[in-house]
């Protein structure tokens, strides 16, 4: 076999009380797409972050292109041909798209003491075309883009440097199907050029389709590497979680069920091009799915239903009360799990306790004012226990948790306060198969308790697997409604999405 592009041996890393990597070896060869899979907290992002210069290992050895490798930071790594797209935000919001693409390499457009902005914008346009963003003006500020487009710009930034190795860290969860296809195409181009890809994902199907080899990590240890010939989904899942999955994954029933009584009603919601005369009714004990391409308006719909964005026309009501803001929505028993978890759903610098407790003070504050530590702790501990959050304790900072456990904290925040209506925007984004199953089981339990759930998702299998009804959106409009049953299949649904 050829000389490896990247070789990591005996890598150790710990964060406070958490051992993130315990002597992990990883080798990536030219012309190889290597998948990296494992539960949240298994160490996937940590090992790739060490290789890309974002973190320093506590111990271990690394070589890249046959030479000892210890990049000082991601910019230096990228200059040497090691490009990584991170799981969450990897762009700078305050500067233009073009400046983001050429961040750290802007000297190539120097014209004396000035930057040749025209040349930079022209070069940015070419790179954006490669990721399918040919209609986006690179002079726009980064903050004008949504999470998917920001991610595509980040991809553009990396591929503009023609890296020898291209690390994709759970990036596809932020992308719609079209965006995903684009990134798969870029990976294939990389492989064809005898370069490498390290692809981290929780989506086993996409890993099986895309990768040549698959390495499984669990609790900071390397468990096993599978070659293409050895690919067996059940064996990989078992390696990942160290046991076989128990119980149902999605709902086991195949017919729609709900209780009497409307939980939430939206009438004629209109907001620019994102929402055009959208109406929907959510009943008690019902799970309604909203599906579509990322830009179809469904994420905006979630915010409007929670009162976080004001529609130009139309209204949302719960028990006859118009939802005109987040505080009103919460008073009416609505909880909202945002897609952009680290920015919109959590305060990363705060503890698990602070994050869970902040939404549920009405539940444990005396006279809705006085907070006593013991009551708050009991409230938080119950959520941690009920949701099996893997943590060192309620005082642990949320930034120290893995993606799945962060999402459990977000769920705890809203479930703990007894929300009767949950608006879940991509609730399983970036979480592993074990946590996904736990969340689906939780949603089923909540439905059976009479709670209403509106699940916005870009993952068709979970919409089909969990919803009583599915509303498909395209260009800000609801194009079709499916009821749970044999007609709710992906081939039919996709017709109304595209």
């Amino acid at each position, binding site marked *: 076999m050829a000389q490896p592009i990247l070789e990591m041996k*005996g890598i*150790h890393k*710990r*964060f*406070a*009380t*958490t*051992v993130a990597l*315990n*002597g992990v070896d990883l080798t990536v060869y030219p012309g190889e797409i290597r998948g990296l899979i494992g539960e949240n907290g298994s160490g996937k*992002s*940590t090992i790739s*972050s060490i290789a890309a210069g974002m*973190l320093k290992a*506590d*111990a*271990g*050895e690394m070589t890249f292109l046959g030479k000892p490798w210890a990049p000082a930071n991601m910019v230096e790594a990228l200059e040497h041909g090691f490009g990584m797209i*991170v*799981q*969450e*935000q990897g762009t700078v919001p305050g500067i233009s798209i073009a400046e983001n693409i050429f961040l750290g390499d802007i000297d190539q457009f120097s014209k004396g003491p000035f930057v040749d902005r025209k040349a930079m914008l022209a070069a940015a346009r070419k790179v954006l075309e490669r990721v399918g963003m040919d209609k986006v003006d690179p002079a726009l500020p980064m903050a004008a883009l949504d999470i998917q487009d920001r991610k595509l710009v980040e991809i553009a930034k990396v591929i503009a440097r023609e890296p020898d190795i291209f690390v994709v860290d759970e990036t596809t969860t932020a992308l719609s199907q079209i965006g995903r296809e684009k990134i798969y195409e870029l990976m294939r181009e990389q492989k064809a050029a005898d370069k490498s890809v390290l692809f981290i994902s929780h989506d086993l199907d996409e890993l099986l389709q895309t990768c040549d080899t698959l390495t499984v990590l669990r609790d900071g240890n390397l468990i096993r590497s599978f070659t293409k010939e050895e690919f067996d989904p059940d064996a990989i899942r078992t390696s990942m979680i160290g046991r076989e999955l128990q119980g149902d994954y999605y709902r086991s029933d195949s017919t729609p069920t709900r209780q009497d009584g409307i939980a939430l009603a939206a009438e004629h919601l209109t907001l620019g091009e994102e929402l055009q005369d959208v109406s929907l009714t959510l009943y008690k004990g019902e799970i309604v799915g909203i599906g579509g391409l990322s830009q179809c308006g469904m994420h905006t719909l979630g915010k409007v239903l*929670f009162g*976080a964005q004001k529609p130009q026309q139309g209204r949302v009501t719960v028990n006859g009360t118009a939802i005109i*803001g*987040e*505080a009103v*929505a*919460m008073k009416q028993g609505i909880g*909202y799990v*945002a897609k952009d978890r*680290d*920015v*919109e*759903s*959590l*305060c*990363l*610098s*705060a*503890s698990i306790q*602070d994050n869970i*407790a*902040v*939404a549920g*003070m009405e539940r444990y*504050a005396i006279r*809705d*004012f*006085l*907070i*006593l530590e013991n009551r708050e702790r009991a409230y938080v501990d119950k959520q941690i226990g009920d949701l099996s959050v893997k943590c*060192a*304790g309620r*005082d642990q900072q949320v*930034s*120290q*948790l*893995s993606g799945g456990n962060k999402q459990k904290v977000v769920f705890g*925040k809203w479930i703990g306060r007894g929300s009767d209506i949950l608006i879940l925007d991509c609730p399983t984004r970036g979480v592993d198969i074990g946590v996904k199953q736990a969340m689906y089981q939780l949603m089923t339990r909540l439905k059976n308790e009479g709670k209403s759930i509106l699940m916005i998702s870009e993952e068709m299998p979970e919409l089909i697997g969990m919803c009583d009804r599915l509303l498909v959106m395209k260009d800000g409009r609801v194009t079709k409604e499916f009821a749970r049953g044999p007609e709710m299949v992906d081939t039919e649904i996709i017709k109304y999405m595209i």
Partner: protein
Amino acid sequence: MAKTKIAAPSAASYRRRQMLITLLPLLALGVLFAALCAVVSTKGYRLDMYLEIIFNEGVVLAIVATGAIFIYTLGSFDISLGASTLFSAALGVQTYNATGSLPLMILVIFAVAIGCSLLSSVLASVFHIPVFVTTVAMMSVLSAIAAQIITTYGGALGGISIPGEVVKPLDKPWIKIVILIAFAALCVFIFNFTKIGRRQKFLGGNPVCAQLTGIDLNKYAIIAFVMAGLGVGIGAFLTLVYTPSVNTGTASSIGMNIIVAIVFGGMPISGGARSRIYAALVGGFSYILLNNILMLLIEGNAGYGISQIISAVFFLAVVYVTGINYRTQTLPR
């Protein structure tokens, strides 16, 4: 890199380490106090005289900084607090001199301090601009008006004053300690035992998430500025109790000193969940102690400048060290 086996510290040892980090500012305060005693005794000066100066300066800084914690917790800051203290004190003096009423003077001081603070937050809210921008404008305006009052009514004296005997009975350490404890207790209660404090910390940590959790930024910003105004009012009053005259230099550096004091007290400048009331108390006295030690050590014309530079270096070092502790615990996102 050498291969070594890594063992994770236990949760208990991790907590111990965090506790030690939390207590470091208090330890630093003790060390600075010991250093002051050593320096004063080496120089052969009277310790009681220095302790009195430090106490009086420290009480005012600690009280104003304690109120300001509410603003800093939101991730914002108010540069106009010094000017606001000066302005409140100047109007208090003018009120007393016009009416001869001490209660009215106190009332005016508090009304002006809270009013100035509120105006900053309301302007920021109305014009949708960052609140520190309005405080920069307020600083200029308040300093200019106060200077105009002082020069107009102070004449050749270079300051305005009230008769010393009016506030002399209040110039007692125990009274100041009681006021400091009472105000700190009120702030600790609001900060740690009510929804207000919890929500303010969350807002400072992530305003976007806070809004999506039903927390109204404007409402909590106004509460923060009212608390800061209250601190300014008490600070202005105690300044007059200590020296019953006001000149253009009175409290002029408090705005900047608060930033340094809060960091010395172990609170991140970005606010959020790690905000603590005691940071203002410990940091306020630590800063005054450090300043006086440096002034004693570096005597002469250059003393003030050099001590400011050393304070600045110390400030950067504290920010860097507290930053390391946070960054090394953060998993990749």
